[in-house]
């Protein structure tokens, strides 16, 4: 019986430590699990890092992976969530020739309709920034591609979970031991 492959967002709270990224990514590599995206940043707690990792796997594997991540000494807690259980976004930037902005009125419409922000404009180029779901970013990229894109970059997913993760409680419980 083969389980359904789904997109899971794995959230990992860790100490801020050199080498931990290596330890965590090795858990995926060893099991031949392709990481769709990985971002790491400061979390809501000072000194605690948060990894957001997106993978397409079955739930059984997601659960096993999370246990392996939690087993690492410097992992505080790890969780996995489905897309429905998170609020998530990606962001992207475009660099486009400036003359297009004035010569192609269609571009201005695209910018307006897609809620895209103009970050900077100079003589040679202008830079657009947009946050949103993957399909919105992809459709924007397709629309702008018609006119020519000098550079495009997209970030990995960042996600907030709908349910609580209670890391602060966990840490203060330790401090009060």
């Amino acid at each position, binding site marked *: 019986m083969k389980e359904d492959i789904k997109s899971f967002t794995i959230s990992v709270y860790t100490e801020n430590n*050199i*080498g931990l990224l290596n330890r965590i990514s*090795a858990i995926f590599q060893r099991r031949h699990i392709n990481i769709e995206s990985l971002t790491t940043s400061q979390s809501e707690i000072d000194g605690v890092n948060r990894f957001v990792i997106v993978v397409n796997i079955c739930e059984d594997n997601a659960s096993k992976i999370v*246990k392996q991540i939690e087993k690492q*000494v*410097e992992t505080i807690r790890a969780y996995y969530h489905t897309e429905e259980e998170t609020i998530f976004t990606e962001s992207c930037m475009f660099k486009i020739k400036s003359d297009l902005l004035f010569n192609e009125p269609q571009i201005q419409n695209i910018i307006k309709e897609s809620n895209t922000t103009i970050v900077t404009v100079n003589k040679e180029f202008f830079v657009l920034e947009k946050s949103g779901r993957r399909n919105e970013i992809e459709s924007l990229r397709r629309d702008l591609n018609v006119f020519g894109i000098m550079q495009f970059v997209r970030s990995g997913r960042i996600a907030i979970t709908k349910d609580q993760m209670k890391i602060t409680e966990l840490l203060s419980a330790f401090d009060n031991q």
Partner: protein
Amino acid sequence: MKTQTANKKEVAVKKQRISGSEAVVRSLIAEGVDILYGYPGGAIMPVYDELYKFQDKIHHVLTRHEQGAAHAAQGYARISGKVGVAMATSGPGATNLITGIADAQIDSTPLVCITGQVFSHLLGSDAFQETDIVGISTPVTKWNCQVTKAEDIPGAIAKAFYIAKSGRPGPVLVDITKDAQVADLDFEYKKCTGIRSYNPVPKTSQESVNAAAELINNAKKPMIVWGQGVILGKAEVELKAVIEKAGIPAAWTILGASAIPTSHPLNIGMVGMHGNYAPNKLTNECDVLIAIGMRFDDRVTGRLDAYAKQAKIIHFDIDPAEIDKNVKTDVAVLGDSKESLAMLFDALNKNSHDSWLQEFKDLYAIEFEQVINGDLNPTKEGLTMGEVLKQINIESEGKAAIVSDVGQHQMIACRYAEFNQSKSNITSGGLGTMGFGLPAAIGAKMAAPEREVVAIIGDGGYQMNIQELGTIFQQKAAVKIVVLNNEFLGMVRQWQQLFFDKRYASTEMTNPNFVAIAEGYYIKARKVTKRDELAEAVKEMMASKESYFLEVRVEKEDNVFPMIPSGASVSDVRLS
């Protein structure tokens, strides 16, 4: 480094200004280390200079290869339950430890490895003997770190010992740059007692124990399979009490061996690829399977989708990542085995399962007739590995610690050695490291000099770390070495015979004069080729106060049975 410290009174010692290298040695002494194994070299020389000054407090054993140091530290840890310590220089010294570290990781052996590293300003410059040992060791350590400042040394070592021995034990590595060794610090040692991101022992829930007890109390054919978790948790007494109260037949994995005496009436033998016939076969007949401190290794389960499918599965383990990893459980009981088994004991009804136990006895009788009798009481001309073990049992009365290497002799040793005392079966289980036996026996003997330590090794594995005879000689370690010489890499040859139409590719060995080599190291040595010499030779070896080497020429092409062929179900266990 965020570590929780012991209470203030305990650590109120005056700070002293000392070097980083002295701090390494003082930290080891503060952790109660009396023996460590290692090999000096450029990047660790300042620490060795301090070891020289502290040699009345801490004994450094110079092995002949860093791999030997790692395995010796493992042997020390496995027989004593304490943390083994190995030390090496940077570059090749550090990489040579890796096999031992990987072995300790998969067999949950507490190990602290300290490696020297090039000066921190040279890191990343491809300096002489620079290697990224932290990167290399990451997948095979429980934790590791690099120290580049002298003042971080005591904290890193304290954390290393705490992590190595707490919860599910494992190897840790602390890499110390040379500038950190030579710089000064204000030394103060505080033992680590907790790390906020690390929960080594999950609390055992009473509900899970009750659920387990209910399944067991209602079971008609319960069966226990215990592993090393019982030994690591020092829960031998609790396990025995559980088994006896509920009358449950209990089998063991290779690393669980010796936790319950071989002669115990409810001890039904070893599970796994070359385990006993009855516990393998009846794994697929039991109604409740209780796994305790074991991890359902593929060598134990055989084909997973045909493993104990009819049974309810209860899994006791300290490591939550083991639950549902290979076998889906009906009831998981997390926690330390000593505590969880004591709780289980209270919740169990007194019971017996005589007719179920009889099924094991009946299958044992079949195995005895078809396999065991021929192994232990052979009538053919060639010597068998089994009869050598039988003689050792007779002489040791089951009190010896048996250290084995990897291969046919290992399976024979685990199957036939009689154990009356826990921590008596020291072998490389998960990693299957040939070359483990000889150095591990040195560490075991030095950790427990009062015990008889017998290394059982094949002619292949023996030659993988044969240089450690030099360590035995120099340390006067009274290890008894038995090489079961069939002039083959026997286990691979057995597979070639059974599955590769006898194409013996690179498994036949033309061996040297082993007796002369042992004698070259001034170790008493003897070779036996005939059955009528065996009993007397084993007697002489066991009576020796010093180290002793015994080579036994055994039948060249004997096979180990029973056997579960790779990919087959446990119930397809073969007797021939």
